[in-house]
């Protein structure tokens, strides 16, 4: 029988590191020319104090997708105030991919995003309010429907309400019924709002 080789060194128990893993060395490695060094530095920074600002800054210029992805995972794992604030700032970026990455990361942080959701939904920029609704798309938080209901009751911008009503069609319950009915009256000249609100109502009432 041919041999499938068993090896005693299949797993390297000790990986030799070229550079130190203390936090200050890791921070310096964020500007290393080698993306592998940057990726591992980001990965190992997960437990260092007060480094989220640096990670968010790196996210703004980093071009290597494998480094970008580990920055987002690391920020999500850290989930500290700076990390969340940095992700929120990314929502204001002109870079669409950065905005989308921030939205995806924030979806994973229901407990950290919940306290600032009110502020996001009250932001002066309607685009930020739309992104906040996008975050709710798969945010595992009990207040999602309440927030969406408030959006369709109060937000003056039709596009923000349209985004919210689409989502209510998926996650809404009879709790939002009246707000959906009223929404059609708030925007009587917007056929899409009427269509989306009716669709959401149909789904909700068929539960």
């Amino acid at each position: 029988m041919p041999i499938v080789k068993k090896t005693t060194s299949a797993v390297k128990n000790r990986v030799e590191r070229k550079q130190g893993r203390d936090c200050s060395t890791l921070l310096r490695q964020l500007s290393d020319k080698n993306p592998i060094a940057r990726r591992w530095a980001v990965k190992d920074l997960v437990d260092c104090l007060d480094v989220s600002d640096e990670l968010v800054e790196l996210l703004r210029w980093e071009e290597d997708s494998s480094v970008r992805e580990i920055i987002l995972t690391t920020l999500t794992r850290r989930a500290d105030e700076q990390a969340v604030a940095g992700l929120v700032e990314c929502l204001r970026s002109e870079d669409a991919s950065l905005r989308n990455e921030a939205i995806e990361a924030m979806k994973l942080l229901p407990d950290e995003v919940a306290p600032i959701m009110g502020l996001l939904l009250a932001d002066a920029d309607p685009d930020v309010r739309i992104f906040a609704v996008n975050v709710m798309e798969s945010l595992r938080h009990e207040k999602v429907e309440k927030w969406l209901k408030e959006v369709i009751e109060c937000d003056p911008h039709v596009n923000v309400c349209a985004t919210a009503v689409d989502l209510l069609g998926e996650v809404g319950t009879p709790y939002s019924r009246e707000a959906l009915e009223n929404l059609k009256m708030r925007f009587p000249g917007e056929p899409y709002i009427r269509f989306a609100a009716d669709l959401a109502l149909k789904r909700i009432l068929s539960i």
Partner: protein
Amino acid sequence: MAELTISMEDFLKFREYFYRKTGIQFDDAKRYFVDRRLIERVETTDSRNFRNYFMMLRFEASGEELQALTNLMTVNETYFFREEYQFKCLVNSILPELTKSRKNQGPIRIWSMPSSSGEEAYSIAMYLLEYWPGINQWDVEIISSDIDTKILDQARRGYYSPRSVANLPKNLLSKYFSVSGEGFQICDDLKEAVEFTRVNLMNSVDVRGYRGFDVIFCRNLLIYFDDLSRRQAADTFYDALHPGGFLCLGHSESMSRISSLYQARKFSDSVVYQKSKEAR
């Protein structure tokens, strides 16, 4: 906190919903089986009670919870040659492509996880020996890992129930196993072919040494993780794979929703995920 229970009304409501979604019907005799798994998912998702969980299940946009529950309701235990189409893909497509582009004669390295009681890793070894001509030219290292040390001991012992080997062709059963008591003992050659190791995929220290793999099998594990843990696992596999290496997930799992670092590759036998050849 009050103990979670599933009422008859809950059970009937769920049964009807699940049947409409999957076509799978549970009769009343399956009540205990269904209740246990529902309670497990209510707890895992922190839903607190069936009502909350059922609302989330029905309206979750991604459908991931329904997928996780579906797998829980349908998975029993692992067995030899489970999801065999991926082993076919390994010998018919993945390994020929890998060996064609290989610049050195180093061993092909395969990581199978979670190991469970070893059926997957031994199946890979058998499949290579039986159906891959390249085994005569290439050394292969198969490492199989699990977080559970007891199940790893069981895997190393290589003793299996008739049910576990039921899917094996008879000629392979008689070639690689001997009858022992009421079960089957795998041969020493296969036991020597696989190295079993304990690893927690979520522990960065545990996984740091797992590098330089050509193929990783991680089937029906990620469905039990939350989104962040899935991303961590995807990062770990990315670092563990050689550039151009392949990741094989379970039939209901997709890397596309977890990470953008892998390219889906559709072969005739299966869809698998590949780390870019240009990656470093």
